[in-house]
């Protein structure tokens, strides 16, 4: 019987409740996060038009670079300002 040392981070993932899905996007503020890949804005422009047609208010955000996670401040800003968020990747 061999005893070894655990090579992993030993972390127990926190369980976070998924937020409730809205019945409709009408009247809600929807954040659109551009991850800064080329032409992501083209896709998001289309999405924005659709959302406005649905009666949503749209806020746009853009990561400084697609190669790194969104800065903490930006994540906080989105969470406090929006009811829903759409993250877009395009090339």
């Amino acid at each position, binding site marked *: *019987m*061999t*005893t*070894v*040392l*655990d*090579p*992993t*981070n*030993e*972390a127990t993932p926190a369980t976070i409740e998924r937020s409730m899905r809205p019945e409709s996007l009408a009247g809600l503020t929807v954040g659109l996060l551009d991850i800064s890949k080329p032409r992501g804005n083209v896709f998001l422009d289309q999405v924005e038009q659709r959302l406005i047609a649905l009666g949503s208010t749209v806020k746009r955000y853009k990561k*400084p*670079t697609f*190669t*790194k*996670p969104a800065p903490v401040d930006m994540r906080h800003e989105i969470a406090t300002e929006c009811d829903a968020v759409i993250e877009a990747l395009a090339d």
Partner: protein
Amino acid sequence: METPALPPGLVAFVKRDCETCQLVDPLLATLASDEALTVYTQDDLTFPESLQAVDDLALEMSWHHNIETVPTLIRVGKTGIEAERIVGWSRDQWQAFTGNMELGITLPEFRPGCGSLSVDPSRSDELNARMGGSGLATRRIEFAELEDDFEAMYDRGWSDGLPLVPPTEARVMRMLEGTTRQPSDIVANVAPDLIDVTVEKIAVNAVMAGCKPEYLPVVIAAVEAICTDEFNIHGLLATTMSVGPVFVVNGPIAKQLGMNSGINVFGQGNRANLTIGRAVQLVVRNVGGGRPGEVDRCAQGSPTKIGLAFAEDEAGTPWISLAEERGMEPGANAITALCLEGPRLIVDQLSRTPESLTNTLAEGLLATHSRRMVAGIDAMLVLSPEHMARYIDAGWDRARFRTELEERLMVDTNDIIRGTGGIEEGLPAGFADMQLPKFRPGGLHIAHAGGAAGLFSSVFAGWVSGPTGSVPVTKPITH
């Protein structure tokens, strides 16, 4: 574990595999007839032959009472406190110690003792772990009796696909002897799970990767290098491009570790080269949580994602090293992490002038990723000794070579506008009539390595370069 007391009277520690112990064997029976004598045997219950020994095959008493030599003779008081001890065989000493002036008069005057099994290098780590309590904080995992150790590690998802060395406490303690840093020291915060990694956790993964303890400072420096905002290991993991961290080791430590800078430098056959990079990747996998198909979204992968480290051949060129060009002192031990694909050859077997060879190298470098990609990626050119010889013969130093090469790496954008040459890929039309560098300023990295024969050099292409992607990071290697 509490120290077990020795019995009062005389106590001897012996092993059969020691000529001096065999020499004093008959004397032990004599001593036993005079006063209470307890003999602990380390390797054979039928030794000594002159009287019945107490079993110390597990070396518990030997370890607790710091026996370094056999035979050791100890006088223990009534309360179990050691009064004095002698080691080896010295007739005068043994006679004075026991008060028996006839003891061993037919034996030679002096014989040195032998090493105690409890300090034998092959046993001491296991003993230290078993008896001493390692003080290591890492969670212990006990494999079931019917589990195969190697399969058990695969089953738990710890492996990169190759077998792992089981990270037992004894092996991890031995690994930690490779550094003076405390096991609990935090080295870095590892993406993607953003976990603080300790020296101890790195040691566990270094054991699994097959590292020797002396490699540990290099692995630690490598982990420090990749877990920086500049290097951006998170991005390397998440990208669909086939890049991983490549490590170049400079300084005398490379030779001390037996790292390869010569024949087959990027290939198989050298333990340090193969296991150092692998250990770093296992830290990313097991501590950082970066696994293919999860945060790692690489489309095709690359050998550099398994682990690739090599030493620069500094002795074979008068040029300053990669580390020196990056600001390290000459002769300093350093590791540079670069975000790169696998190597590909640039072949030129006919050029005899540095100008001609530089033209070839530039052509090869311009083709990295695609001729139509400019100013977007870094690259590393590793000159082979036979190519390097062209520059040494002509008296070119590193600075001259760099200047000449970079002049040849300017791209006429009219050749790579979208649609030109029947290729849809390329720059937008607005970039016409410009001269752009293939690599950003400082984005071409140059090193020297390889076997003495072969008129080819290697180029490693990179990934998104500069602050928006990955910037190479050089760290000093400290023990």
